[in-house]
């Protein structure tokens, strides 16, 4: 028994010493980036607001991966005195949660499916509150030679070169029915392809089935081309140092507008519509628009999202889509 106690004591001492050692060392590998990434070391407080009122939203992965919600969540919880639950979901499953009434509001970025969702009676009070752009990233040596082309031309080249040489030229798709995935399908359509043909055309086309961040990491590993939104790209570039670069950026089709939709209480009586309305009005308010304007400027040099009012290219939503407060 004494031997055992002695062994345990020695182990304990070793663990504590290692612990002190580990704490005083400067962090070895790349430390998690300063805000917005929620590194547990800086554990935020969770003051429990009214615990009985839980306001659930489903958000697109691209907004979540940049940490914007971690920033906004405490502010809204304080303002509305609710506990906000944020579920990480691609646009596809977010719409499904909305249809099933499992959440009270959804944040998505696929205009076509949003309109369908609202027409079917599941959503109301849609407002746009932010936008940014997509880009095509790829290996620095650009084997398919797409730098500087338009989106459609770039996709065409990737397809041609990929069919030609699938080991060197690959494209990683979200493959998860998300808003980004929908945009990708749209661009393939512009080129003149049927998406199903592209999917099955060869080994150069890789379907990740993941959120935006994980897809970027996969493209990074494979040194492949990928369609990403600029904010997640910048966030991950800073956090983990991607070895792929942005190659194609300026194209009107890359416009990416985020929308918040409340779940229709007529379809789902238990949906918390007052809080959802308050939430949506808050998103389009001056306060949040200013936060969105400056979010990320310190770390990334440019802001990750743009306040919706500054949207001025074809395809931007009309003013009332983002200024009229919901009733």
């Amino acid at each position, binding site marked *: 028994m004494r031997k055992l106690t002695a062994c345990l004591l020695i182990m304990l001492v070793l663990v504590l010493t290692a612990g002190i050692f580990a704490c005083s060392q400067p962090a*070895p590998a790349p430390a998690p980036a300063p805000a917005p990434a929620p590194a547990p070391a800086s554990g935020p407080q969770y003051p429990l607001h009214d615990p009985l009122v839980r306001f659930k939203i489903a958000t697109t992965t691209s907004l979540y991966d940049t940490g914007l919600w971690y920033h906004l969540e405490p502010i809204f919880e304080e303002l509305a005195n609710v506990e906000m639950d944020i579920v990480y979901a691609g646009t596809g499953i977010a719409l499904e949660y909305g249809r*099933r*009434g499992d959440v009270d509001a959804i944040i998505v970025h696929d205009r076509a499916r949003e309109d369908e969702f609202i027409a079917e009676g599941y959503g109301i009070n849609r407002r746009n509150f932010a936008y940014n752009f997509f880009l095509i990233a790829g290996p620095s040596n650009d084997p398919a030679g797409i730098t500087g082309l338009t989106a459609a031309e770039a996709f065409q080249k990737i397809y041609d070169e990929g069919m030609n040489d699938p080991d060197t030229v690959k494209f990683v798709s979200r493959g998860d029915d998300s808003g980004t995935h929908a945009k990708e399908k749209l661009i393939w359509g512009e080129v003149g392809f049927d998406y199903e043909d592209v999917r099955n055309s060869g080994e150069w086309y890789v379907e990740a089935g993941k959120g935006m961040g994980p897809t970027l990491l996969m493209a990074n590993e494979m040194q492949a081309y990928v369609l990403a939104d600029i904010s997640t790209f910048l966030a991950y570039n800073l956090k983990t140092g991607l070895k792929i670069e942005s190659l194609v950026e300026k194209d009107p089709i890359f416009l990416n507008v985020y929308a918040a939709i409340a779940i229709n209480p007529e379809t789902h009586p238990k949906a918390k519509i007052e809080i959802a309305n308050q939430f949506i009005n808050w998103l389009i308010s001056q306060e949040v628009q200013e936060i969105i304007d400056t979010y990320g400027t310190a770390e990334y040099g440019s802001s990750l999202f743009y306040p919706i009012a500054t949207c001025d290219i074809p395809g931007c939503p009309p003013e009332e889509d983002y200024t009229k407060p919901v009733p």
Partner: protein
Amino acid sequence: MIELWNGLLKAIELIVTLDPEVMEIAGRSLRISVTSALLASVICVPLASLIHFHQFRGKRFLINLIQTLYSVPTVAIGLFVFLFISRAGPLGGLGLLFTPAAIVIGQMVLVTPILLGLVISALRGVDITLIDTARSLGASVFQTSLVVLREARFAVMAAVIMAFGRAISEVGISLMIGGNIRGYTRVITTAISLETSKGDLELSIALGIILISIALVVNIALNRIQQR
């Protein structure tokens, strides 16, 4: 490979500094899995005795079915329970989706086949003469089953430990019906999944080590009970 070593250092750092977010997640993992293992045990141990001590048609088929259910993937169970407790589902009115209670329910569904199957095996392992002796001394069926359970307590406890291990290590259920909501339903396994997908491998390894440490402590405790 350096990540493994860095992960170990990070785990020690997180534990020693009592990092609040990690402590919160670890505490939640522990609470949820202990609850589901205990509740399931309370239901399944008597149920397993009932099944074992009574003869009925289809008993062998039932036991076969129970053992087959060991292999159900956790995501499938997660999906199954999701369909029930989603607002669009039959139990939707309870508003259970994306709550810790939902995870407990899901994990109970997960460990039930394991508990039933292993306890039945445990009871089978008890020498048949014990039953005969007890009956001949005038014990009722209930008293006999208590005696047999007591005799098989080591193996029954092993089943409970197995159930806990299965519950605390699963991801599919916690992810699908918990929603991995920070501050509410995030548990160690879903946090590992998230951090890995974000590329923070060291933190993921650290969380994995912490989970094993928790399992170790719980096991030591359960073992002391088992040895008594």
